[in-house]
């Protein structure tokens, strides 16, 4: 279980805009182990999605650019691959599930066309086999009468079904790694439960290595093995999910957990972290979290905290622990 399949090392993705350099991802590090579900957690704008897009190099370039860091996959450094190599990796080795199924499906092509497209690109199968495989995948995703659904257009399906179609699509070429960008955010709670079930099953049956992006700690606690908490384009805490939830170290992680409504305490206001995410053009100096941190010290605004290992699996970047 400990073999690392994807390693992101000091990744920096900047966007060079007219208003300045947006440091969307600024030195993120994590490892994805075979068969595990790694969660990227954080508020909106903390760089989760850009990290995911950087792995597949799918952000708009220009203005975006990976200025530093390595993404190692299968003896390749993805930041240095040619665009042709990237095309072969996308979908076949690393597949992505997008947040909004509604807009991630092409409205003028049938579901069948869209599911088989990726197989046509990557697999040496004829059209009968791709169709068969697509239908099998759809039924595996719990879509009834798959044959009929193949002929449907996206607008004829419900939101949950569209999300399942997207997952089926991303699995069609047996990818090594699945990146899911907030797949449960745009759907209601019932569908959310069903989709989490699917991911759980993927892990159990296929030992799928998944990077699961979410802002929802409840989801993390349900399906995650390990979690990377991101803030201001950096990873601030990395630990097994049980430790993140049970023994959070970083004040930001603690803040996030305190924000979860507690059903045992009725009444009273919900707690929140004061302030908002920093302006990515003008990041605070030192630790980017210090203006909002309840435990901020003098050093926090001056020096960037180094990464400290609490235990073998638990790393945190905070001056409290240095």
């Amino acid at each position, binding site marked *: 279980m400990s073999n690392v399949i994807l390693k992101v090392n000091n990744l920096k993705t900047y966007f060079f805009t007219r208003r300045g350099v947006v440091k969307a991802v600024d030195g993120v590090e994590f490892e994805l182990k075979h068969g595990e579900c790694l969660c990227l957690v954080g508020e909106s704008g903390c760089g989760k999605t850009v990290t995911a897009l950087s792995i*597949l190099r*799918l952000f708009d370039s*220009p203005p975006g650019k990976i200025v530093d860091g390595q993404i190692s996959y299968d003896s390749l450094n993805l930041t240095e691959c040619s665009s042709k190599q990237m*095309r*072969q*990796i*996308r*979908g*076949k080795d690393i*597949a*992505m599930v*997008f*947040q*909004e199924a509604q*807009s*991630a*499906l*092409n*409205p*003028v*092509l*049938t579901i069948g066309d869209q599911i088989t*497209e*990726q197989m046509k*690109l*990557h697999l040496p199968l004829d059209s009968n086999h791709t169709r068969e495989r697509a239908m099998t995948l759809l039924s595996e995703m*719990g*879509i*009834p*009468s798959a044959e*009929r*659904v193949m*002929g*449907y*257009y996206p607008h*004829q*399906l*419900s939101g*949950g*079904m569209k999300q399942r179609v*997207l997952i089926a*699509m991303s699995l069609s070429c047996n990818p090594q790694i699945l990146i899911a960008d907030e797949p449960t955010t745009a759907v209601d709670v*019932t569908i959310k439960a*069903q989709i989490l*079930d699917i991911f759980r099953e993927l892990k159990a049956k296929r030992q799928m290595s998944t990077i699961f992006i979410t802002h929802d700690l409840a989801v993390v606690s349900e399906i995650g093995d390990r979690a990377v908490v991101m803030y201001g384009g950096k990873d601030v805490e990395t630990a097994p999910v049980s430790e993140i939830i049970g023994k959070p170290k970083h004040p930001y992680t603690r803040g996030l957990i305190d924000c979860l409504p507690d059903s045992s305490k009725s009444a009273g206001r919900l707690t929140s972290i004061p302030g908002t995410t920093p302006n990515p053009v003008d990041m605070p100096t030192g630790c980017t979290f210090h203006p909002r941190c309840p435990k901020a010290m003098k050093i926090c605004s001056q020096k960037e905290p180094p990464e400290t290992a609490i235990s073998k699996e638990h790393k945190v970047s905070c001056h409290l622990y240095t």
Partner: protein
Amino acid sequence: MVETSGDIVKGVGRCMPNRTRLINYYWQRTRRNKLAIFGLAFIIFLIALAAIGPLFTLDPTEANFEETNIPPVRFTIERSVYNIETDDFTTTKISGTWKHPLGTDSKGRDMLAMIVSGARVSLLVGLIATGIAIILGTIIGVVSAYLGGWVDNALMRFTDVMMTFPFFLLLVLIVFIFGPSLAFIVLAIGLTGWTGIARLIRSESLSLRTREFIVAAKALGASDNRVVFRHLIPNVISLIIIMATLSIPGVILAEAALSFIGLGDPTVPSWGIILESGQHTLDTAWWVAVEPGIMLFLTVLAFNFLGDGLRDAFDPKSNV
């Protein structure tokens, strides 16, 4: 886990499960527009006329100086002929005959035959020139929007320059340089007519480009070519159809106008050429100019009605 969504599928399934039904759906929407249906019917009639009409008519090029300027059926005109011997005008009455239902021109050619073969020429001009303009406009518009950056800038400034060029003057210039050949006229109209289409396609593609399904297609490992041709262009196809329908009459009229001012191809009897030949004999044989004029009028009207109807049908916001 899935019973509820199963019901949803069944419910939706009754509406329209596949491609043919989608075409059907647009056909139903278009059909509600009576004028569009009239336009479509006339265009079908015209295409049939152009395709098989010449098999049944007389030879449109055969001159017959015994039967010049015969009016259409049911019309009678008086013609005065100067007689040298008597030094007097003799007036004769000439009536239309079923041999030449639409009359003959000043060279005794059958008008019906000329109109029918003119339909062939005018339609071909309209379709080919529009085809060229649509293909150019779509490629330039989509490429410009998809690639963005300096490519977009260069292509759009080029479009601006093309737009500021006086289109008609350019045509006159081309005819002047290359001579009045129909092929050159068609090519010239096509090569200058793409600008508006390119701009419209670009603006539509710009908003499509940022949609997630385009990123998703790239995430599947699709190449730029594939994204453009399989994901972008099918999404602007309704726009292309509407633009094509609406630009065909303009092209037919442009060719007619060129012919009318004497720059048309004299070897091919398009409606514009017939119209032009009729303008000299308006006082003695009005039908030579009026008949192709009516055909031009109806054709342009039919394409415009159909184009408007299609636009309403394709527009999801309109309730036809």
